[in-house]
């Protein structure tokens, strides 16, 4: 396939990313909806804040009462719909890992009932260790702990981080997960991600695009992860991703940005932009983007091989704290508007709950709440 650098192809690319895993879909009017109950994904904008659905840009769409998502923009400041999109991408690896590993273990457990999966190269590796308890343990671990993409602005690098390998996280779950299970799960993750003996954190990507390094890095890393997980995702997760096409789209990111320069959404908000004297007075020779949009500094660096204490307080790419997203089942208060919580029957798995709702950061804070919905992170599959 030879991708032309058109806004239509840019649209198809973003659409395929929005629809990854079948959690959301884009309807005929370009509104992004939850597959679970067809409710529109929304963000609260304006003054006073009102919920508006997110619509994916498309040439020829009708003007209306929505917030248009055009991720290919590099204006200073952050907007809520773009933050939602990057959060969606950043959290997808965790979803993919948990979902496919759960399904694999489920098949392995069913083997005792004559499922016939013994020959499967993945299942056969851990078949002796698979039991119902392991299945329950997987269920107890929130999706975001399985894998999140972080973005290091100073290095323009995106990096995968799996918290399951860190002692601090394990300590938190010591009464819920057996010690031996951690080893098995980490082995499964490494196998699925094809990192060999290395930690998942070895998967990283440094952006070479000056115009939109964040999106470039996150998208490249995500596609890399999807490429590594292509077989187990298809085999167990029943998620088929056309990685080759995504890869081709990636080579045109800059062109896509240029082709959509005309599409001005006007949706940045001041709470996402931390322009202030401190930032503004950074010596002019410094990177202008850093000097103006700033953002909070994470207290530590989640670099490769970092110990568990080093990642405390860090937040994944695209995360929004103290923001109100309207998701499936109501307003997600004080959490991140990531994958949402499909409550009904999503395309992939009717009972799959991503449960990616956090108060602030990965550690040290209670889970957020989804008003009118099942508490996130502990929803049974």
């Amino acid at each position: 396939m030879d991708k032309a650098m058109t806004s239509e192809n840019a649209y198809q690319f973003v659409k395929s990313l929005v629809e990854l895993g079948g959690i959301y879909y884009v309807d005929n009017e370009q509104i992004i909806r939850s597959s679970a109950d067809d409710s529109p994904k929304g963000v609260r904008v304006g003054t006073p804040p009102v919920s508006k659905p997110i619509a994916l840009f498309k040439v020829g769409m009708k003007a209306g009462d929505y917030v248009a998502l055009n991720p290919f923009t590099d204006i200073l400041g952050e907007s809520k719909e773009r933050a939602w999109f990057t959060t969606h991408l950043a959290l997808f690896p965790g979803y993919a890992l948990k979902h496919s590993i759960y399904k694999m273990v489920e098949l392995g457990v069913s083997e005792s009932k004559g499922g016939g999966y013994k020959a499967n190269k993945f299942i056969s590796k851990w078949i002796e260790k698979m039991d119902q308890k392991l299945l329950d343990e997987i269920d107890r671990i929130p999706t975001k702990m399985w894998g999140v993409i972080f973005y290091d602005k100073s290095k323009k690098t995106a990096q995968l981080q799996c918290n399951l390998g860190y002692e601090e996280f394990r300590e938190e779950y010591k009464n819920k997960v057996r010690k031996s299970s951690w080893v098995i799960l980490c082995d499964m993750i490494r196998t699925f991600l094809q990192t060999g003996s290395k930690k998942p954190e070895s998967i990283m990507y440094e952006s070479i695009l000056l115009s939109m390094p964040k999106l470039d890095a996150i998208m490249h890393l995500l596609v890399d992860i999807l490429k590594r997980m292509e077989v187990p995702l298809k085999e167990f997760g029943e998620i088929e991703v056309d990685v080759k096409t995504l890869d081709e789209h990636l080579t045109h990111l800059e062109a896509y940005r240029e082709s959509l320069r005309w599409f001005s959404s006007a949706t940045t908000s001041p709470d996402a932009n931390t322009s202030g004297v401190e930032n503004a007075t950074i010596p002019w020779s410094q990177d202008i983007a850093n000097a103006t949009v700033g953002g909070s500094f994470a207290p530590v660096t989640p670099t490769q091989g970092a110990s568990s204490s080093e990642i405390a307080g860090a937040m994944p790419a695209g995360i929004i704290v103290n923001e109100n997203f309207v998701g499936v089942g109501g307003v997600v208060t004080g959490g991140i508007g990531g994958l949402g919580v499909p409550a009904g029957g999503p395309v992939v798995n009717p009972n799959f709950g991503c449960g990616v709702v956090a108060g602030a950061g990965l550690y040290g804070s209670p889970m957020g709440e989804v008003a009118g919905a099942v508490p996130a992170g502990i929803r049974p599959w």
Partner: protein
Amino acid sequence: MEELTGVMPGMSGGFSNGNACIIFYSPRIYGTQVLRPYSYNITGNTIDKLACGGPTMKDAISKKDIATHPDVAGAIQPTANGTPLDMAAANQSWTFTLMVDIASPWLAGSALSGAQARRRIIMSGICLDEPVSPITRYSGYPTYNDDCHLRITHASEIALDPGVSPAGVNTKAIIRSDMDIIDRSMQKDAPEDLYIGTPDKVLTCNDNKSGISTEGLAAVTNLHQGAGIISNLKSPVSHLRQLCMGLDQQVGLYEASGPLGVANPITDERNVFDVDQFKSGVASEWSQMSSGTNYTTGGIKTGQVVSLRTLKSMYPALTNPQNIYKMELRPMSDVMTAGGVRDQMIVDPKTVYSSMVASAISTLAINFGFDLIDFSYDSNGDQFSGNQGSFQVRDCRLIMQPSDPAAAKYMCANALEMFRRQLSIDLVPTILASNNGQFQMHVNYVRNGDTVVDLNFYDWPSLSGGVFEAPNRISNTGTTSVVTGQQFIHNGNMLDVLVHNVYGKNVRNQFGVTAFGQQDSGDLLNAAAPEAPSVQLF
């Protein structure tokens, strides 16, 4: 200067002191008009180019390579997803155009006291009642309703000012003011809350923590009387230039009385570190450049409705029935009847930039005194001869056109050349910066009628079909400074970033303050950045 005499019914033509006339237009149906206000898209490059491209930002933007840079030319763009306005009420209303000629003594008591400052005031808007009796409407002698109230949506003032030189008195035509009038009635036609989004308003009403902190000051629904928005803001480059000038002036104020200068409240060391004070000063500069409420022109308060009876008492010439005209329009324009009007609800480059062209042309045309202009522009131009774009005029007419054909031709030629230059500076770079490729456009602008734009991008053949139509007598539907709450916050946010950066570069650093507020005699530009955690989130 050729003596100007006689007034043509079309409101163009010569000056005649004390003359006044009004034309009432029967209702005409327009398609849904979509407000597509300008949004600021400030990138790191935008700030870099403007703040470092010359001694002042105005100097920087005057350079062609900077002005045409995509991040500068595209810094102000129409919002793709606009706000549709319900035209049901406007489509049923009569509209009007009022013209008044006023002469003021000039240089009284001097040898040149015969010279006069001649002003022509032109206003247009909507009739709130039936201006013509239905019974006599189609008779030869229609009866006009003196109690018909008129709401002004656009006001212009053009002056022929005598300038004194060694060669004598040299009269020049000057556009004194041209503005859209926004009042609270506009709110009822919009599906969501609207705000006056002029630069000063979005900057001062924007709170970094809670969004619009004082939205009451900017909300259209809170306008007790019409607010005037200077129409220069409709031209994207002119708009950006005004932003730069406001910043320059405030920076200049700091520089003029810097550390070695005269101490004043602004340069007082205790205050110089206060970015809020700088911001407030910039907002004040922008306010003067962009808006004014309760504007009075020719004795009429533009922000208030006025009855025909009041107008007659103010301008006796209107008591003469020959000075009140009634124009019966066909219910729909020709292009609309033929189904050739483009649906403004469609979000694509053709519609979005046609909207911008229609808005910008209305201010560019009036800036050079055009009452009518019909032209084509092809950005491809003739590359071999070095022309950047080809410009062809089919028809044009000046608002104050001399009766002598030779003089009229001379004035028109001059105005056209200036118009062409301004077009290539103010509008073409912004359209090209949208990266939709080369384009060709045909524009027909009639000040008392409609603006029709047929914009086609060579790279977008699939978007052809349908022309963009906008009413000029209800010109507030084409304003680019009335925004939704979301756009208000976005624009305020963007300008806040711009102001903070200019302040950081030009003010704080100049006063020997490092990034963390310590006095530093070293080279600030090369000062080491503070050690920061290596992971920065959003």
